[in-house]
């Protein structure tokens, strides 16, 4: 029964369903969940998955191809062009230097030189699948460190082509390789070159000129699944084409993704491919976990541990130094080094290819294969280590950028925090020729605004010396617009304590923060999303057919009530949480009752001047006394 496809599928899916949510819940990330699931269903624990794991892994590698297609879709050609320096420079150097260093280390341990070079090149690769998934899962892909890691991975994918060409040269059967370098397909290399070029042109051409009409045609048919089929067909077709010319399928589909990034079917393609990508990648991770040969590890624990730790340490060092020389800041450098220090899945392919080409023996390769799998399993824990300990340490302690010195500090207004909120305040002031001194802690923001001609001082506004330098004591107003709650409270405390005469206008994250700041004696506190939500409420009334003036008046009435309630609740917040929630409930009901049109008190209190209902009622009582206008003194 264990051989049937359905049983296999059930085992893999069950592993995913069971272990991924647990790993997520424990904060370990989905990738580690898949890997552990693979170990558990694999031959060494439950034994549900056996020798066919290899085949499953080859099949599941297609998930990587799909992932790069989706990554390509997110990456417009212009953006890719911006990344050319990290891709070629950082990526190229990473492959070359890591390969050289690892090969050197292997030589030191007495490995034969050809094998050492092959192992160096193989171990220079990192795992695109694990790294991109982990970065995306943690939302780190768009950071500068994440972008660098992505660039390096891309370059690694590209360098697979020359590496595959070099391996036969390294083989013991040198004669054939030296005399005429041929590819797998048996063509001379210059013709292969032409084929490669032709394939790339074909991919770009298909992306530009074929996909659109095909999708338009399919859209006319209104068949959801034909869209999905077409999307899969494109990805598989390109992968096939790339294999034919000896290019990496992942690279080809990535290119296709980039070409399609500008097309109107981008989101369509993305949503169609996404579930397949996710499932196949999961399958891939599970099979990696199931592949780990615990028997071998048990017999050679020290050697394998040495290979894993040694290789990862060397790669980590190389990546850190390269990141530094390419101008990454400390957190980005650590992110790059930690994320790419494992050995990638492509090593499985290269190691068996090496055996095939007789560069080394199978006995030599098997501990290496085990080391590769272990290093991949260690990547999610490495990410956890990075996130919990390394990044906070790198960010807090080592602000490499020195705080700016403030030369002229005679502005009447000091603004702390110049993000989305502070900028709006600052622009209104500057539009009225009011000078502002701006402090911000985000180096990117400081640089961007500098390029736009706005002078922003880089510095931590919670530091009292900086507040002095910014001239807060001579300022007429301090605008507190930083987005971090604790940071804002700290700054407010410092300003209140050291410059008690300067009024503060502050941005509050929520009600709790609002009262916190008010308790510190901040004059004006504004909840950051209040105004836009208020405007949206007015728009909503207008869309529903209310007159514009009425919509504004109703919203103002609600706002007055809301503010009154806020003050009342502020008293309760600190002392009596239970009573607070009771009161919130009561006030919500009250607010809604007030707003309801059938409530006569609303009219009487607010609109009597424009309303003649009361005058009409008078007329019924005394028909002779006709009021002349709607409001007439008696």
């Amino acid at each position, binding site marked *: 029964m264990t051989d049937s496809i359905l049983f296999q599928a059930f085992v893999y899916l069950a592993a995913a369903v069971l272990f991924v949510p647990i790993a997520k819940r424990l904060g370990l990330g989905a990738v580690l969940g898949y890997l552990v699931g693979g170990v558990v269903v694999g031959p060494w624990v439950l034994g549900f998955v056996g020798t066919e794991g290899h085949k499953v892994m080859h099949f599941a590698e297609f998930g990587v191809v799909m992932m790069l297609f989706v990554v390509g879709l997110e990456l417009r050609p212009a953006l890719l062009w911006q990344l050319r320096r990290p891709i070629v420079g950082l990526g190229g150097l990473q492959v070359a230097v890591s390969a050289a260093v690892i090969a050197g280390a292997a030589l030191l341990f007495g490995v034969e030189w050809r094998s050492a070079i092959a192992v160096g090149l193989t171990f220079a690769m990192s795992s695109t699948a694990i790294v991109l998934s982990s970065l995306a899962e943690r939302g780190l892909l768009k950071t500068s460190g994440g972008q660098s890691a992505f660039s390096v991975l891309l370059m690694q994918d590209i360098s697979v082509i020359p590496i595959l060409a070099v391996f036969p040269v390294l083989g013991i059967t040198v004669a054939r390789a030296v005399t005429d370098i041929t590819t797998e397909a048996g063509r001379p290399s210059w013709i292969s070159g032409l084929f490669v070029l032709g394939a790339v042109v074909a991919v770009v051409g298909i992306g530009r000129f074929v996909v659109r009409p095909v999708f338009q045609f399919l859209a006319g048919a209104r068949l959801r699944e034909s869209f999905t089929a077409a999307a899969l067909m494109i990805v598989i077709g390109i992968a096939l084409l790339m294999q034919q010319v000896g290019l990496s399928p992942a690279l080809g589909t990535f290119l296709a993704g980039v070409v399609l990034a500008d097309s109107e079917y981008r989101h369509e393609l993305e949503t169609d491919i996404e579930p397949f990508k996710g499932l196949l990648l999961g399958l891939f991770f599970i099979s990696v976990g199931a592949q780990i040969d615990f028997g071998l590890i048990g017999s050679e624990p020290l050697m394998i541990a040495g290979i894993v730790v040694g290789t990862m340490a060397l790669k980590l060092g190389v990546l850190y130094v390269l990141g530094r020389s390419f101008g990454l800041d400390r957190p980005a450098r650590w992110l790059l080094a930690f994320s790419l220090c494992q050995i990638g899945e492509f090593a499985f392919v290269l190691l068996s290819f090496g055996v095939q080409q007789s560069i080394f023996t199978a006995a030599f390769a098997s501990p290496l294969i085990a080391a590769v799998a272990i290093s991949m399993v260690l990547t999610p824990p490495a990410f956890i280590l990075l996130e919990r300990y390394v990044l906070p340490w790198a960010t807090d302690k080592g602000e490499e950028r020195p705080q700016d010195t403030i030369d002229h500090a005679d502005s009447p207004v000091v603004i702390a925090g110049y993000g989305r909120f502070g900028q709006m305040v600052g622009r209104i002031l500057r539009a009225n020729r009011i000078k502002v001194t701006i402090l911000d802690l985000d180096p990117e923001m400081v640089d961007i605004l500098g390029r736009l001609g706005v002078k922003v001082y880089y510095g931590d506004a919670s530091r009292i010396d900086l507040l002095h330098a910014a001239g807060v004591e001579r300022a007429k107003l301090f605008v507190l617009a930083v987005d971090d709650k604790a940071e804002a409270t700290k700054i407010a405390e410092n300003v209140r304590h050291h410059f008690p005469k300067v009024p503060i206008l502050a941005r509050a994250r929520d009600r709790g923060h609002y009262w916190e700041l008010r308790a510190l004696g901040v004059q004006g506190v504004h909840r950051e999303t209040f105004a836009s939500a208020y405007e949206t409420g007015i728009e909503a009334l207008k869309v529903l057919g*209310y*007159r*514009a*003036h*009425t*919509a*504004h008046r109703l919203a103002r009435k609600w706002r007055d009530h809301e503010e009154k309630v806020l003050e009342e609740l502020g008293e309760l917040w600190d002392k009596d949480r239970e009573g607070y929630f009771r009161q919130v409930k009561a006030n919500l009901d009250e607010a809604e009752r007030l707003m309801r049109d059938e409530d006569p008190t609303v009219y009487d209190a607010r*609109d009597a*001047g*424009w*309303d*003649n209902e009361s*005058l*009409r009622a008078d*007329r019924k009582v005394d028909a002779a006394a*006709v*009021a*002349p*206008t*709607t*409001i*007439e003194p008696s």
Partner: protein
Amino acid sequence: MSRVLVLFAHPVLERSRVNRRLLDAIRDLDGVTINDLYEEYPTLDIDVKREQDLLLSHDVIVFQHPFYWYSVPAILKEWQDLVLEHGWAYGAGGTHLRGKITFNAITTGGPETAYKKGGYNRFTIRELLAPWDQTAFLCGMRFLAPFAVHAALKVIRDEDLADCRASYRQLIQALRDDRVDLARAAAGENLAAELADVMGREVA
């Protein structure tokens, strides 16, 4: 052909009885622009340039509003203060409104009989409109008698207002088509009652 601009002001049109119906009676007319001030400027931030451009592109300016406290709703006063700028509407170089025709189309709660000496409102509508009369004079505009609908509180159904709606529409049409005897219209008391007298011969 003249172009007619109706500057309309009612703070709660949705609860209006007469003004809404009067306005509906002329909405579809060609050559008539309706400028609903409270809808346009719910926060009373009047766009002066837009308002002046509207005035320039029309020949007949109608102020339609309820006669709150013998005067206009707040936004119309704001409009008057901001739009009729010195040097534009009056004073040196303030000639842009010269020769245009203007009047108030108003609704009152009280009956016609209250608006006279000895009535409980003591003054006639024309007397009470003196500020608007004088505004028009200073801007070189021709000020006509008001179109006044009295005892607006009595109006409940459409039928109650059928005559008024018809005369209002006729008056606006006639002004647009230059068929109004302006001298008579300027001398009258209430155009709603004297429509036949002031219309050109072909209609009368």
